[in-house]
């Protein structure tokens, strides 16, 4: 059923993308500026995820400061956000403002339906560099990051303390750490991403960058999936399975919390939301006593995490772009970012917001802040969905010892070359 939905969704995406592209929606940069006068009219915002539930009440202050403005927020299921927006772009029924996901926004950006960020609206250097770069095409920014996260190495502090270990800092130390955790009773040393398809590939993207590689050439025009550095990175990832330090059968999705709690695994590369999952399941006291976070252990080229971010983008065919940009500016002020963190929990994309005690006082987020400085996004090309999904699926052959890293990456390279990099 799920796979049927995926196929259906993909068919809509492809159909709507082709149509949107064929309408000749070429992107052009505008040297528009946005004044400080109150916004007016009706502003339509489409947003996926749970944010849409909380945003209307959060924007009460903004609406008070802009009494002539009415903000209409439509909450959309995240899984279908791209299909809905692509169809709307093709049919010309777009809202004024949307929140895009970094993992999937490339195919939306390829339609050329977004307006360039007006000059002087925000300063690029105020944001974490990876998050800001996600929406930059040909030197022009088409979106402004609203939230950002990076994966971290999260581990059982109590078991590490017993073993007399701190967080592993290098690839070699990560192996030794996993073995030591097994010595402390953990069934598997670590939980590695497995069974997540495209998210496995996102995880591998970290390791290839840690090894000085990359899935795309520097100019973004060629796939470089089977480069020597990438093969070595996948070999390293696969060695956790072949050496019995990680299970090829999990943890998957909801298993992660119980596996981590019951010593099935003692560490995992996972995003900052893991802390709240553990609080929900085990309580704050358990988390304070047992959870620690660190940046990802460094490979030969350093520590690199996977980046995820959400950006606000204004549609060229929207009816009220001026009000939309004013809301973008408001949402990316450091004080608004802090308030939104307190209200909803999204981590700020604006660096200055991290100095606020509300965030700075949470020791578990120190590693997050550090990781965000160097975190890397998935390849921002419109075929990433197909290529990343296939790569993620094929990686499991390595985890199960059914193929070598070289064989898998050669195969995925051939697949990716046939898919191309899109537009």
């Amino acid at each position, binding site marked *: 059923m799920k796979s049927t*939905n995926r196929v*259906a*969704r993909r*068919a*809509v995406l492809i*159909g*709507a993308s082709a*149509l949107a592209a064929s309408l000749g929606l070429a992107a052009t940069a505008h040297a528009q500026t946005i004044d400080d006068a109150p916004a007016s009219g009706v502003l*339509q915002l489409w947003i*996926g*995820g*749970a*944010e*849409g*539930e909380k945003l209307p009440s959060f924007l009460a202050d903004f609406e008070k400061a802009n009494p002539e403005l009415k903000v*209409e927020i*439509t*909450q*959309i*299921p*995240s*899984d*279908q956000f791209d*299909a*809905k927006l692509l*169809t*709307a772009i*093709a*049919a*010309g*029924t777009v*809202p004024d403002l949307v929140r895009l996901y970094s993992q999937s926004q490339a195919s939306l950006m390829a339609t050329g339906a977004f307006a360039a960020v007006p000059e002087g609206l925000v300063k690029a250097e105020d944001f974490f560099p990876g998050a800001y770069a996600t929406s930059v095409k040909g030197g022009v920014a088409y979106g402004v990051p609203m939230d950002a*996260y990076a994966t971290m190495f999260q581990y059982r502090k109590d078991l590490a303390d017993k073993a007399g270990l701190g967080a592993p800092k290098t690839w070699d130390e990560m192996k030794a750490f996993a073995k030591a955790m097994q010595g402390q009773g953990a069934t598997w040393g670590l939980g590695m991403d497995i069974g997540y398809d495209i998210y496995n590939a996102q995880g591998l993207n970290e390791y290839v960058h840690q090894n000085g590689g990359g899935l795309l050439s520097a100019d973004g025009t060629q796939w470089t999936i089977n480069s020597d550095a990438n093969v070595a990175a996948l070999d390293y990832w696969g060695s956790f399975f072949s050496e019995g330090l990680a299970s090829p059968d999990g943890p998957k999705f*909801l*298993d992660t*919390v*119980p596996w981590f*709690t019951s010593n099935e695994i003692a560490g995992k590369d996972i*995003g900052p*939301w893991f802390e*709240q*999952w553990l609080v*929900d*399941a*085990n309580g704050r006291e358990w988390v304070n006593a047992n959870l620690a976070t660190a940046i990802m252990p460094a490979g030969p080229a350093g520590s690199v995490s996977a980046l995820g971010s959400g950006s606000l983008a204004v549609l060229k065919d929207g009816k009220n772009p001026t009000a939309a940009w004013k809301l973008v500016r408001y949402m990316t002020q450091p004080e608004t970012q802090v308030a939104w963190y307190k209200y*909803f*929990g*999204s981590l700020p994309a604006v660096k200055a917001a991290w100095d606020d005690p509300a965030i700075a006082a949470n020791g578990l987020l120190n590693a997050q802040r550090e990781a965000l400085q160097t975190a890397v996004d998935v390849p921002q090309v419109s075929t990433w969905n197909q290529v990343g999904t296939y790569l993620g699926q094929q990686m499991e052959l390595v985890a199960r010892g059914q193929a070598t890293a070289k064989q898998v990456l050669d195969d995925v390279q051939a697949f990716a070359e046939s898919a191309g990099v899109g537009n």
Partner: protein
Amino acid sequence: MSGKHPLRTALLYAALTLVAAIVLMPFVWVLFGAFKTQGEIMAAPGAWLPQDFSNLANFAELFERRQFGTYMGNSLIVSAFTVASNVLFSSLAGYALAKLPFKGSKLVFGCILAAMMIPYIALFVPQFFIIVQFGLVNTLAGIVLPIAVMPIAVFIMRQFADSVPDELLEAARLDGAGEFRIFFGIFLPLVGPAIATVAIITFLNSWNYFLWPLIVAQDQGTYTLPVGLAVASQAARSIDYGLLLAGAIVVLLPVLILFLFLQKYFVRGVAVTGLK
């Protein structure tokens, strides 16, 4: 026959009971999950029983804060109009195609068969363009229109109509009855089971319809239940599983009630069309 082999019958029933239990297990898990908190599900996703069966917080949240009343109303309206429209127009079309020979009727029927074979996803974007042109974006009418007459419904009615004896209709014509009188007075009462099958199939289709209502709706006031469920169960960087499971029960309940009352027509529908 089975009375002669009591052991065989007992074994057969035991096997069927076991298979039924296995098939029902996921539904029971969903039902029990609807009474769990997010913490309970996170801590032990595989656990069966909730800590407290009187915990109705998920249901209360859905109806009090997540607009489930609105979504359910929209779903009922969409399904009611879809069923009524399909029953009326597909029986008219089925009658005409089977009992009123006219030039090109085979071509028309061929086109209907062809329409059944085109995946609806291929028509998705052009359909949306048409709805935009009609000014029906963000309306329940825009959701209903593309499924107001489903090719499968016309096909079923045409096949059933074929089995109605021509003599009955001829006799009515000889008595001076007009075509509409024959259609409503004689034909429709004879094809009751076909109408029930069409009603059930079109109800299930429209009730579970997801992607199209999502695309047509431009604000949450026009969302139907499946779309509303997908929205309501979203949590920060996760899914609110308690809400998701409670919502699934709410979506499932009308179908379950319908099934209990119209069981034999469901089975007939599956047998006739091969669709579930």
